């Protein structure tokens, strides 16, 4: 299985302003194999989210994207919006960090889960869509799905909302799931459940996964390939095991040293003089 699903070259995202191009993602290269799991790690503001949004073609207003993003052989950066839309939700799905604000408070979760399906598959009746939503909710193990399908987001707990977000991507069986910090807002126990769920779905559907997080321990458990970012730059990338056992870049090493361990090593955590120290 060396079939490349996503092939990113020279991806650059900038917010040009009076002072210059103001690049927040700088010439990023990485690949994701079909069914593979890629982790993108880095500190806050290092450009992780912008990378994922660039792939989705959902960059905020004012952002400029250059470089190439090839998905399943098709160049996404050239696609007109209309064509790009047929990828989104259908073949590439995204799960966002904050599940409450990412769900529309005005509609039931059922409606929102089925929405993507209805818009990508024509001729789906309301009833069918509902059934699909219930099935998706059952798959992410939301109990009593038949009833809860008619509830509103605010009636769910944080963990369940995140499950709803995942359920939303499921109905379409996407080939690529991008999860942008899907567990940051959650408790460890809930985080563990969500991560398990993602792993399970991947093994069920064979979908590729890009997991974005700043938690190295999380990526170490989930992904097989790693991209380390800092200030929009690609610091280092490679197979997870290699990076965890033999990090090449000093920044990666520092990062790994700074992670508090639960199992081992008690002592002063190693830190790099970061940009902030220099200020």
């Amino acid at each position, binding site marked *: 299985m060396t079939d490349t699903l996503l092939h990113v070259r020279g991806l650059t995202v900038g917010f040009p302003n009076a002072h210059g191009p103001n690049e927040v993602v700088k010439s990023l290269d990485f690949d994701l194999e079909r069914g593979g799991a890629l982790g993108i790690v880095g500190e806050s503001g290092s450009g992780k989210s912008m990378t994922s949004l660039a792939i989705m073609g959902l960059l905020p207003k004012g952002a400029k994207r250059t470089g190439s993003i090839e998905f399943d052989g098709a160049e996404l950066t050239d696609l007109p919006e209309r064509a790009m839309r047929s990828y989104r939700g259908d073949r590439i799905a995204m799960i966002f960090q904050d599940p409450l604000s990412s769900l529309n408070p005005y509609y039931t979760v059922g409606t929102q889960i089925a929405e993507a399906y209805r818009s990508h598959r024509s001729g789906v009746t309301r009833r069918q869509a509902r059934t699909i939503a219930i099935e998706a909710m059952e798959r992410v193990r939301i109990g009593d799905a038949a009833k809860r399908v008619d509830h509103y987001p605010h009636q769910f707990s944080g963990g369940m909302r995140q499950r709803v977000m995942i359920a939303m991507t499921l109905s379409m069986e996407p080939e690529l799931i991008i999860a942008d910090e899907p567990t940051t807002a959650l408790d460890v126990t809930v985080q563990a459940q969500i991560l398990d769920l993602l792993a399970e779905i991947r093994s069920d559907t064979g979908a590729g996964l890009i997991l974005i997080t700043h938690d190295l*321990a999380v990526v170490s458990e989930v992904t097989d390939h790693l991209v380390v970012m800092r200030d929009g730059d690609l610091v280092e990338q490679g197979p997870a095991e290699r990076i965890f056992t033999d990090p090449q870049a000093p920044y990666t090493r520092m990062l790994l040293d700074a992670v*508090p361990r639960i199992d081992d090593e008690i002592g002063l955590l190693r830190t790099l003089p970061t940009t902030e120290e220099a200020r």
Partner: protein
Amino acid sequence: MTGETVPRQTVPTESSSAETLLRASNLVKEFTVSGGGLLGRSGKFRAVDDVSLEVRKGETLALVGESGSGKSTTARLIARLIGTTSGTIEFDGREVHALTGKALHGFRSEVQMVFQDPYSSLNPKHTVERIVTAPLAYQRRPIPGGARAFAGALMERVGLDPDHATRFPAQFSGGQAQRIGIARALAVSPKLIIADEAVSALDVSVQAQVINLLRRLQDEEGFSYLFIAHDLAVVRQIATRVAVMNGGRIVEAGDRDAVFGSPQHEYTRKLLAAVPRIRPEWDAARRRNDQARREREDPGA
């Protein structure tokens, strides 16, 4: 430039003979939750349910538990920011749970807090100087050596540039801002610092800096921490003793190694199991590789 590499050191196991600084017994806090409106029946919600704990001099007691388990409420009870429903708090041998008004000032200068969100906990409209001297100002105590010098000294102690005393919080990074919060806590030379999720909002590298700072200060000045966190890995790094909260109660308490090594309560076990971890063999391999590299780069070491 690879940055400083601090030799690993073992934290000495605490001596159980250490003196007790704070003792909270049977704390209960009930909140009235109204049913809304005029007709709504109001009920009582027990956020803290019969919690007893003690913090000894020079040690760190960590309070862990999932969101909503009552950690912050316990901290605020102990800091006397909210009144207790019942229970007693003894600090340095004095009963403090009934103090009010001015009488509280003495206590306030011995117990300080550091908060989760560095920006939210600093008034954006005040300069650093004003922020760090605020506890003295509020307690109407003279500022030794003048505000500028005092603030400068404090800032230096937490590793900030004293020249930045007239800046506003927004002009600092998260880690620096959190240091300002710590400096403020140090202003009154407290005996106990309550750190409520003081590092949870920070990136790992910054988090590490702050943890290191807290540890250094403890080593240098010998004060005690009540350290609240939900990240067990962090807790393990800093705690002397650990108390696990769930549903408003402390379900398990004990020495760090005891709690992490052989958790007694089922909830603690569940919590520990859920913590994501980097495979220890990877870490071990990395350490070997690291060692090898260092030797390669600097054969003299």
